[in-house]
């Protein structure tokens, strides 16, 4: 590695100060589980790193009336081991639990999972389905944007870690009856990239879906929302498994996976995406159904 400078700020202000001083030559590092191998392989040129994992203000989770705030330095382990997240946002807990190994989850952050901009990133898929936003400091201003709008292409985020710093991820708290779910299909159960993954979030009135959000990966250059399938789900009754299945068929038609030596051919992956979207829709519908019984 050829890192000449490594800053360990304790506050957001210090981190932003270092970023400004280094004027484009510094780069934010959080967990580093993706960045460190890239630097070792000379695929990322980073002469100076600003490590935000010691910034206490952005390490925690906060449960607010409107949203869950996930600090930019919070790890996958923190999120998937939190019972309140498992209860309200099981899609996010399951996605975070399926990333890497325990060793990776103890260090890697959700923010890194998004900014690394890989279309298979499990946490990012769940966050897109849940309508999560990212808050970041850019040119002295705190900006907020839907996570799905922060992708510039394969492996390219609109967040520039040489100039900008993410402070938090905000996951909106579901209002009324709601269900969400995440799933993946992979060659083995643990420590494995998914062949396909998907998440669903269903907002309901009574037993009818009023709004559906689906996210799928890796079936496009970025986390993918099959919007025709989402539209098809409006006004569908939760127990109407045929309609859920029809939406899954649409979603798989909209998806555009590549043939891959690692992940299988495109036709196979399209078929798996149909099966998986159906599964997550049924799981999310079951959760929404349970909620409606409770209320």
């Amino acid at each position, binding site marked *: 590695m050829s*890192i000449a*400078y*490594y800053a360990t700020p304790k506050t957001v202000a210090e981190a932003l100060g270092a970023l400004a001083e280094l004027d484009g030559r510094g780069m934010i590092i959080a967990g580093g589980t993706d960045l460190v191998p890239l630097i070792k392989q000379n695929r990322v040129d980073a002469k100076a790193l600003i*490590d935000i994992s010691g910034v206490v203000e952005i390490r925690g989770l906060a449960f607010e009336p409107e949203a869950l705030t996930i600090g930019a330095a919070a790890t996958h382990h923190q999120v998937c081991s939190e019972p309140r997240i498992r209860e309200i946002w099981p899609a996010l807990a399951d996605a975070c639990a399926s990333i890497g190994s325990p060793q*990776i989850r103890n260090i890697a952050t959700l923010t890194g999972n998004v900014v690394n901009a890989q279309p298979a990133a499990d946490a990012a898929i769940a966050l897109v389905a849940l309508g999560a936003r990212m808050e970041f400091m850019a040119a002295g201003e705190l900006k907020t944007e839907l996570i799905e709008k922060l992708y510039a292409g394969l492996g390219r985020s609109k967040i520039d870690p040489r100039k900008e710093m993410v402070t938090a991820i905000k996951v909106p708290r579901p209002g009324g009856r709601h269900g969400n779910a995440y799933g993946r299909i992979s060659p083995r159960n643990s420590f494995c990239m998914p062949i396909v993954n998907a998440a669903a979030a269903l907002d309901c009135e009574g037993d009818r879906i009023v709004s559906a959000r689906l996210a799928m990966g890796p079936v496009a250059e970025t986390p993918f929302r099959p919007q025709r399938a989402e539209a098809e789900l409006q006004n569908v009754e939760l127990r109407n498994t045929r309609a859920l299945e029809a939406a899954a068929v649409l979603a798989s038609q909209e998806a555009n996976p590549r043939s891959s030596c690692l992940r299988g051919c495109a036709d196979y992956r399209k078929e798996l995406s149909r099966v998986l979207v159906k599964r997550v829709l049924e799981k999310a519908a079951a959760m929404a159904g349970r909620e409606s019984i409770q209320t």
Partner: protein
Amino acid sequence: MSMSQIPTRKKIEFILNGRPTRIDIEPDELLIDVLRDRLLLTGTKKGCGEGECGACTILLNGKPVNSCLLPAMKVAGQAVLTIEGLAPDEALDPIQESFLEAGAVQCGFCSPGAILAAKALLDEQKNPDEAAIKSALSGNICRCTGYVQIIEAVKLAAEKMNAQPPASKPS
């Protein structure tokens, strides 16, 4: 301020195997290299160097992490446990005993990492079921045992640790 004016090497302090430790760290040093090459703690093994195999597992504040992916600067002010710190002097921890008894140590290269991953599990759960054991060890690749003996060893260690009150040992 230009980069050339910023001091690059830093003296960090951390708790290593229960003892306060100070060392000068270069900005590009990884923890595994500091442990093995400078502190001569060669029990931590370097396998893939990419966070895939788990041979380099150490406990950072009680949680398993890959030391091959960890810039050494990250451990400032933290507690690090390597396999050398698991039991005092020449004694063996019950997990190490169990690995020997169950035949879980064959070539031995994965053992330090697997034992520390098992320690982190057993510190949190006294009686983990097989699924919990498999999950806790899912970041540690073993090419000898087929994992059967390793899983048996962790079960045996749990029995041993539940049978005897914990002796005083370095954290």
